[in-house]
C-alpha cells in the first residue's frame, strides 16, 4: 500500500496544482455531518409528482433513462422473438409480409435509436459526474429536457406501431422505397420523427458529458488521469456531435421534406439522387456502431482492473485506441455501399480504412488480456460477462475484417452473414459489457448487490444463447439467405439452421428473464453493499451507495489514476464550496486546476414543458407543415418562460471580469 501512495504522490508531484496545496488538515466529524445535512437540504429535489416532473438530479434522470432504455431492450427483444418465430420454419404464416416488415423495422429502430445509444448515454449521465468527483452534471435542465424528448419519441413510435402505423421500410429507410411514392401514408414519417427525437436527446447528452468531463473534474484529475470509462464517454460524445447531425439532416431535412412538402432530394428524375441518402445515412450509421460499443469497452476496463486487482496495462494505449477509433469510424461509411455503383478506387480506400480500425480495437483486447495475466481474476458475474464479451466480440470483429474486403463483402452484403456479424458486434461488444456493468454498478445505484447465483445463470445462458442464435446465421448467409425476408421456400434448405437460431433466441429470452427477476428481487432484498463493495478504485466508490443528491460532501482531490488505491489515510478533499446553494467547482480543461465556483439551477418544470412543445411540433409536422411555425412559436414562448425563471436575482456573487474581482448581486 505505502509504496502505492508514494507512487501516487511521486506521480502527482510533477503536477503544479498539487505542489501549491497547503499542508493537509483533518476535517472533524461534526463539521462533516453538518455539511452533509446542509447539502442534503440544498440539493434534494422536492418529492411528489411535481418533484418527479421537475427534478434535475442527474442521477434520478439517468436512472429513468436507463430503465426506459432497458424497457426498449425488452420491447425490441420481443420483436426479435417474433421474427425468429416467423423464420423458424419455411413458408411460415405467423406474420404476413406487412406485419413482418413493421416488426423488423421497429426492432432495428428500437435497438439502435431507443435502446443502445440512449442507454450508453444514460450510463454516462449517471456515472461521469460521480467518476470525475462533481456534484452534478454541467447542464442539469438540458439533461432533463433530453430525457423527456427521448421519452416522447419512445411513446410516439409504440403508439404508432399499435395503430398499424409502424415504420416498414427498414431501420435504414432506403429511398426510394421509403420515399413518398413507395411508402404512402405516415408509416415512414413516424420513423423520421422518432429518429429526430432521439437525435435531440443524444446531442443534449453529448454536450452535457463533454462539458462535465472537460470542465468539472476533481482537482488533480489532469487529462492523463481521467478514468477510461470517462474517456470512452468523452470520445463517444464528440462522435455524437459529428455523427447525429448527419442522420437528423437526412431524416428531417431531406426525407421528411420529400414526403411532406414534395422536395426532390431523392427523385432522380428531378436531379435528386437515391445514393445521397445512403451516403448521408451511413456517414452517421457507421460511427453509430462505435458510439454504441466504445462505452461498452470503457466499461470493461474498470471491471478487469477491479477483479484482477491490478492497474490496467497500457492506459495511454487504451486512451489513444479510443481516440483513433473515434476518428477512423468516420472514414468507413462507404463499406456499407460496396454493392452500389461507386468508383473502384474509392472502394479500395474504404477497404483499407475498414481493416485499419481493427488495430486499435485489437490493442485494447491485448491490453486487457495482459492485465489478466499479471493478476489473478476473480470470476464474479461482471468478470464472466467480460470473458463472454471477449469470446463473442472477437468473432464479430474478425467477421468484420472479412467484410471489409470488397470482393467477399459483395457475397455477404445484405445477407444473414451480415445480420450475424452485426449482432455479434453489438450483443458481444456492447450488451455483454453492459450487463457486466449492471452487475458492477447496481450497488452504487441501489445500495444493494445483485444475486451472484442468478447472475451466473444469466451470464452463461446469455453467452450460449447468443452464440447458438447467431453463429448459424453466418452459414445461412453464405447459403444465400438475404436479410429482411419474411419467409423462404422449403427447397432452399435454410429450415434446420433457422430452427437452431430460434432455439438460441429462446435461450437468450430465458437469460434476460433471469436478469429481470434478479433485479426485481435484489432492488429491495439484495445484500447491502456499502460504499465500495468491490474494493474498486474509482471516485464513484468514494461516496455512499446510493450516492446522495449532492454526490460528495466535499469535492475529492485526485492524486493518481486510481484515487481510492492511491490515497492512504484520510480521504483528500478540497473545501470551500457553499453548502447553502447548488454550487459546483469548475476546473481547467487540461490539469483540472480549480478555476471558479458555478451555481447550478434548482428544480424546474420548463424542460418537461419544452419537450412537450417540441413533441407537438414534430408530430404535428407529419400531418401539416403549418405545425412547424405554430410549434416554433410555442417553443419560443416556453424558452421565454425558461429564461425568466433562470434570471432571478438570488444572492451576492463574486464576479471576475477584465482582471478585477467585484462583489455584486
Amino acid at each position, binding site marked *: 500500500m505505502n509504496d502505492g501512495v508514494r507512487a501516487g504522490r511521486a506521480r502527482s508531484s510533477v503536477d503544479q496544482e498539487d505542489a501549491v496545496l497547503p499542508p493537509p488538515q483533518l476535517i472533524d466529524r461534526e463539521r462533516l455531518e453538518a455539511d452533509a445535512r446542509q447539502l442534503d437540504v440544498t440539493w434534494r429535489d422536492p418529492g411528489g409528482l411535481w418533484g418527479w416532473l421537475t427534478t434535475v438530479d442527474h442521477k434520478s434522470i439517468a436512472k429513468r433513462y436507463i430503465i426506459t432504455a432497458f424497457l426498449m431492450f425488452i420491447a425490441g427483444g420481443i420483436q426479435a422473438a417474433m421474427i425468429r418465430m416467423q423464420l423458424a420454419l419455411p413458408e411460415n404464416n405467423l406474420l404476413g409480409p406487412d406485419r413482418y416488415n413493421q416488426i423488423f423495422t421497429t426492432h432495428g429502430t428500437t435497438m439502435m435509436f431507443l435502446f443502445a445509444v440512449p442507454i450508453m448515454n444514460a450510463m454516462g449521465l449517471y456515472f461521469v459526474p460521480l467518476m470525475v468527483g462533481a456534484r452534478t452534471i454541467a447542464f442539469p435542465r438540458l439533461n432533463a429536457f433530453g430525457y423527456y424528448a427521448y421519452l416522447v419519441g419512445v411513446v410516439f413510435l409504440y403508439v404508432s406501431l399499435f395503430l398499424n402505423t409502424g415504420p416498414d421500410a427498414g431501420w435504414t429507410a432506403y429511398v426510394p*422505397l421509403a420515399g413518398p411514392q413507395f411508402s404512402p401514408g405516415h408509416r415512414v414519417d413516424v420513423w423520421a420523427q422518432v429518429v429526430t427525437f432521439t437525435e435531440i436527446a443524444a446531442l443534449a447528452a453529448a454536450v452535457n458529458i463533454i462539458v462535465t468531463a472537460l470542465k468539472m473534474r476533481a482537482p488533480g484529475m489532469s487529462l492523463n488521469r481521467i478514468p477510461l470509462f470517462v474517456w470512452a464517454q468523452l470520445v463517444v460524445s464528440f462522435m455524437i456531435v459529428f455523427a447525429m447531425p448527419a442522420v437528423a439532416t437526412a431524416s428531417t431535412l431531406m426525407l421528411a421534406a420529400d414526403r411532406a412538402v414534395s422536395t426532390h432530394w431523392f427523385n432522380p428524375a428531378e436531379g435528386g439522387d437515391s445514393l445521397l441518402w445512403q451516403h448521408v445515412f451511413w456517414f452517421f450509421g457507421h460511427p453509430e456502431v462505435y458510439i454504441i460499443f466504445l462505452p461498452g469497452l470503457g466499461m470493461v476496463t474498470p471491471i478487469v482492473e477491479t477483479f484482477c*486487482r491490478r492497474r490496467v496495462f497500457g492506459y495511454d494505449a487504451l486512451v489513444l485506441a479510443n481516440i483513433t477509433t473515434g476518428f477512423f469510424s468516420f472514414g468507413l461509411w462507404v463499406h456499407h455501399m460496396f454493392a*452500389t455503383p461507386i468508383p473502384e478506387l474509392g472502394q479500395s480506400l474504404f477497404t483499407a480504412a475498414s481493416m485499419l480500425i481493427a488495430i486499435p480495437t485489437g490493442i485494447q483486447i491485448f491490453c486487457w488480456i495482459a492485465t489478466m495475466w499479471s493478476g489473478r481474476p476473480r470470476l464474479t458475474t461482471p468478470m464472466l460477462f467480460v470473458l463472454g464479451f*471477449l469470446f463473442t466480440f472477437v468473432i464479430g470483429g474478425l467477421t468484420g475484417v472479412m467484410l*471489409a474486403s470488397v*470482393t467477399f463483402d459483395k457475397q455477404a452484403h445484405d445477407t444473414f452473414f451480415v445480420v450475424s456479424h452485426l449482432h455479434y458486434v453489438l450483443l458481444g461488444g456492447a450488451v455483454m459489457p453492459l450487463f457486466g456493468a449492471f452487475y458492477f454498478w447496481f450497488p452504487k445505484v441501489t445500495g444493494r448487490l445483485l444475486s451472484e447465483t442468478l447472475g451466473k445463470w444469466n451470464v452463461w445462458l446469455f453467452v450460449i444463447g447468443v452464440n447458438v442464435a447467431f453463429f448459424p446465421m453466418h452459414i445461412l448467409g453464405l447459403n444465400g439467405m438475404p436479410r429482411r425476408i419474411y419467409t423462404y421456400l422449403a427447397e432452399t434448405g435454410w429450415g434446420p439452421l433457422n430452427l437452431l437460431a430460434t432455439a438460441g433466441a429462446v435461450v437468450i429470452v430465458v437469460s434476460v428473464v433471469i436478469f429481470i427477476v434478479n433485479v426485481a428481487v435484489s432492488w429491495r432484498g439484495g445484500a447491502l453493499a456499502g460504499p465500495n463493495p468491490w474494493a474498486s478504485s474509482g471516485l464513484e466508490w468514494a461516496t455512499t451507495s446510493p450516492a446522495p443528491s449532492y454526490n460528495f460532501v466535499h469535492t475529492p482531490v485526485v492524486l493518481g489514476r486510481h484515487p481510492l488505491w492511491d490515497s492512504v489515510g484520510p480521504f483528500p478533499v478540497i473545501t470551500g464550496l457553499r453548502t447553502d446553494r447548488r454550487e459546483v467547482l469548475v476546473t481547467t480543461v487540461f490539469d483540472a486546476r480549480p478555476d471558479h465556483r458555478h451555481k447550478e439551477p434548482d428544480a424546474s418544470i420548463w424542460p418537461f414543458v419544452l419537450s412537450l412543445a417540441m413533441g407537438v411540433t414534430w408530430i404535428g409536422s407529419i400531418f401539416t407543415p403549418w405545425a412547424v411555425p405554430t410549434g416554433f412559436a410555442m417553443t419560443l414562448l416556453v424558452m421565454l418562460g425558461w429564461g425568466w425563471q433562470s434570471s432571478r436575482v438570488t444572492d451576492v456573487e463574486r464576479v471576475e471580469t477584465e482582471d478585477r474581482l467585484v462583489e455584486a448581486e
Partner: protein
Amino acid sequence: MMRSRLALVILLAACSGRQNALDPASAQNRSITALFWAMFVVAAFIWFVVTVAFLVPAVRQRRTTREDAEPALELPAETSRRQTRLVSGATAVTVLILLVFLIYDFGVGRALATHPARALTIELVGHQWWWEVHYADPDPSKIVIDADELHVPVGQSVQIKLVSRDVIHSFWVPNLIGKRDLIPGYTSSIFFTADRPGVYRAQCAEFCGHQHAKMALDVVAHPAPEFSAWLERQRAPAADPSDSLAANGKRVFLSAACSKCHAITGVEAYGTVGPNLTHLATRRTLAAGTLPNTRGNLGGWIVDPQSIKPGARMPSNQLESRDLVALLAYLETLK
C-alpha cells in the same frame, strides 16, 4: 467445443447447393471463395489463440494470497516489460495479417475488374417483385424479352446491365458472383463467366417491399450451342393455338384483364406492366421463382395471387371455370 464441432459439421455440409456462395460455378467466384477460406482459416486461428489467452489466466488454479487480494500498484519491472513486449508483438502480428488480407483482396478485386473486350450483353430490369430480362441484339426484331429466368452460355463472359423501374433491388447469384444493386437513376453492370452448366438460384438481396422474400430468379447456364438454340426458340412469336379450347383461351386472354399487363408476341397483347408471356410454358417457375410451373399452380396463381404473394401487383381474377380451363390450355401452348 461441442457447439463449434457441430458448427464445423454443418459448415462442411453447407458448402454445396444451387444457391451457395461456397460452391463456385464461375471463375470469378472461385477466386472469391479462395479468399474467403483463407480469411476464414486465419480468423478461426486468431479467435482460438485469443480465447486460450484469456481463458488460461481465468481458469488456472489460484490461491488468493494477501498480495493478490490487495492491488499490487507497481508491478515488478520485468513483468511490465514482458507485457509490453507481448502486446506490441501481438499488435505487430495483427498489422501484418491485415496487410496480407488487404493485398490479397486487392489482387482478387483486380482480377474481377478485368473483362474481355466483347461479352454477351443481357439487360436485367428489376420490378416489384419480378425480373425482366432483355437479350440485346443489333437487329430489333431479334431482341428477346423474357422474365424471371436468366439464360447464359457456359465459358463465355456475360455482361449483365442492371436497371430498376421502381425501388432498389439487388442482383445476386451466390454461385456465380457477388451482388450488385439495381438503383433507379443509375445503370450499372456486372460481368461473370459461368464455367459449369447448371441451374443456379438468385434472389433479390436488397429489401424492396412486401414481396422482397419472393423475388427469385433462376440462372440457367447452358453449353454455348444449347444456349444459342434456346435463344433462337425464344425469338419465335407465339404459335396460333390449334385446338378450339386453346383458341377459346386466347379469346379469354384478350377479353379479360390479362392483356392489359402482359404481352404476347404475335398477339394483340402489348402490356408491359407484367412479365412477357410469349414463352410462358417453357419457364421452370411462376411468380418469380415462387411456384413450380405446373397447370395447377398456374390456375391458382391466376385466380388468387394475393394469397400466394400478398401485395403482389397481379390482381386476382374472377373467371368462369370453363374460361379458366380454356385460358390454362392456351397458356400451356406458349412454348
